[in-house]
């Protein structure tokens, strides 16, 4: 039961993100419009034009500039946000690494869209999966409600002085971004109180004094300078440590938010669905989890012990939760909405498989690559995956470890 009275608004995923950002008291937004993220930029510019927010909105000439602008604004202690998709995220690639290396807690929504070529504007996860190793926390939303909730949580996670890592929230292009949904929103003052103001940690400057970690003429600092074989490695290890600490912080922020909003997503890292006594299970991220839940319910009605593990957070990878959720299953299918060309399966498959390697009794694991370029993923397709899993569970035999589902031969 929600303790705070909330308003139900008809919002598509993009509008839900823009509304969340509006409530989070953001200082600087620098963004460049790209399908299917455009609505976020349009909506937010309306808020700025109407004087509904006190945000400086910077119309930049590219996504590379958008991320650079957010990084530098963030380095002065400002709360910053941007949004992008597909080619836009690819153009940001260089600055994604600079932003995480400078420990700038920028929050970004990535409206997941296929990468060119051939050019395609529809959903898959190839854009953000290609950015998985750049030191950003990655959260994926199943629906517009979760996108709204995750943006609010993202500021708290990113700006935690123990973390200081940029955070991206993925939502499926068109499937969520352009689809109207009833979204429950918290009162703005509740959101403002929840995110608070940025808590700036102290660092030692070149005079050996402890000063706030932000660019300020009163207390000069050098952030992200030349760093060679003698210290670069140490700084990268610090980023890894922040990621490890984020596992705990993401859960804490999720729980605190759940208490106020009445909405929770598993433990904040993974959301198991009817998984406890399940014999066969799929693993997926994003909006497809919604379809899978429906199929799981149908299968359960027919006495089939099916379950789902929805990964909400992909970076940091919640390894312990994956192990505890999936150990003892008779067959598991990992669903990837991205291709890792030549990689023997999709990126999710690699990671789930490497985590389960530590189990003494490794469950049979198969990979389905699906939905590339917005290819529809109807319920019968999910159903057929569970049928395959039943056969694998019965026989222990895997015919094809990596399959492409919904593809014409």
């Amino acid at each position, binding site marked *: 039961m929600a303790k705070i009275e909330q308003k139900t608004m008809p919002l598509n995923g993009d509008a839900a993100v823009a509304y969340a950002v509006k409530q989070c008291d953001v200082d600087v937004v620098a963004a460049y419009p790209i399908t299917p993220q455009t609505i976020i930029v349009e909506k937010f510019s309306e808020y700025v034009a109407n004087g509904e927010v006190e945000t400086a909105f910077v119309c930049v000439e590219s996504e590379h500039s958008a991320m650079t602008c957010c990084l530098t604004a963030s380095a002065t202690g400002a709360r910053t946000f941007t949004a992008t998709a597909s080619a836009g995220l690819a153009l940001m690639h260089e600055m994604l690494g600079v932003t995480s290396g400078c420990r700038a807690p920028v929050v970004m929504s990535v409206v997941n869209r296929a990468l060119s070529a051939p050019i395609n504007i529809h959903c898959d996860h190839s854009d953000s999966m290609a950015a998985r190793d750049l030191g950003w926390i990655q959260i994926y939303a199943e629906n517009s409600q979760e996108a709204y909730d995750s943006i609010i949580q993202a500021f708290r996670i990113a700006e935690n002085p123990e973390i200081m890592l940029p955070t991206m929230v993925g939502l499926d292009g068109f499937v969520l971004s352009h689809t109207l949904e009833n979204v429950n929103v918290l009162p703005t003052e509740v959101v403002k109180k929840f995110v608070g103001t940025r808590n700036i940690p102290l*660092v030692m400057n*070149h005079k050996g004094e402890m000063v706030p970690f932000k660019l300020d003429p009163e207390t000069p600092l050098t952030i992200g300078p030349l760093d060679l074989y003698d210290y670069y490695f*140490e700084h990268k290890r610090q980023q890894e440590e922040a990621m490890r600490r984020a596992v705990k912080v993401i859960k804490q922020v999720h729980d605190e938010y759940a208490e106020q909003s009445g909405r929770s997503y598993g433990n904040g890292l993974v959301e198991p669905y009817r998984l406890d006594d399940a014999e066969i299970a799929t693993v997926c991220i994003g909006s497809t989890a919604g379809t899978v839940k429906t199929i799981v319910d149908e299968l359960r009605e027919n006495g089939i012990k099916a379950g789902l593990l929805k990964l909400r957070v992909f970076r940091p990878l919640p390894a312990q939760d994956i192990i505890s959720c999936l150990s003892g299953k008779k067959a598991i299918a990992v669903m990837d909405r991205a291709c890792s060309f030549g990689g023997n399966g999709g990126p999710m498959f690699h990671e789930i498989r490497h985590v389960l390697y530590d189990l003494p009794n490794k469950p049979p694991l198969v990979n389905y690559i699906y939905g590339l370029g917005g290819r529809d993923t109807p319920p019968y397709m999910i159903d057929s995956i569970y049928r395959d899993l039943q056969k694998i569970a019965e026989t222990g035999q895997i015919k094809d470890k990596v399959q492409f589902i919904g593809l014409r031969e």
Partner: protein
Amino acid sequence: MTPEKKGWKEIPLAGVCWVPSTEYKTGDWSANKPVWNTEKCVRCMLCHIYCPDGAIKYDPETNDMIFDYNFCKGCGICANECPTDAIEMVIKGKE
């Protein structure tokens, strides 16, 4: 290079410099070093002016040109500019 190196738990995040850049010795990047000949030198100070690293100073008390090998990167500009060939670049370790 600064001799004592700290571990990842001790240093500030994001590459923030906790010492002034003058504490960061870059002299060991060099392969060659300038060797000064006091007899040939006329103290014109061109080497001091041209040195991109500010690694050459003049000491008026001793009338010597002082080469700071903690920062000299061995580029050889001083030797190239010297009008009296009073600076010779030699391979480090073979001087």
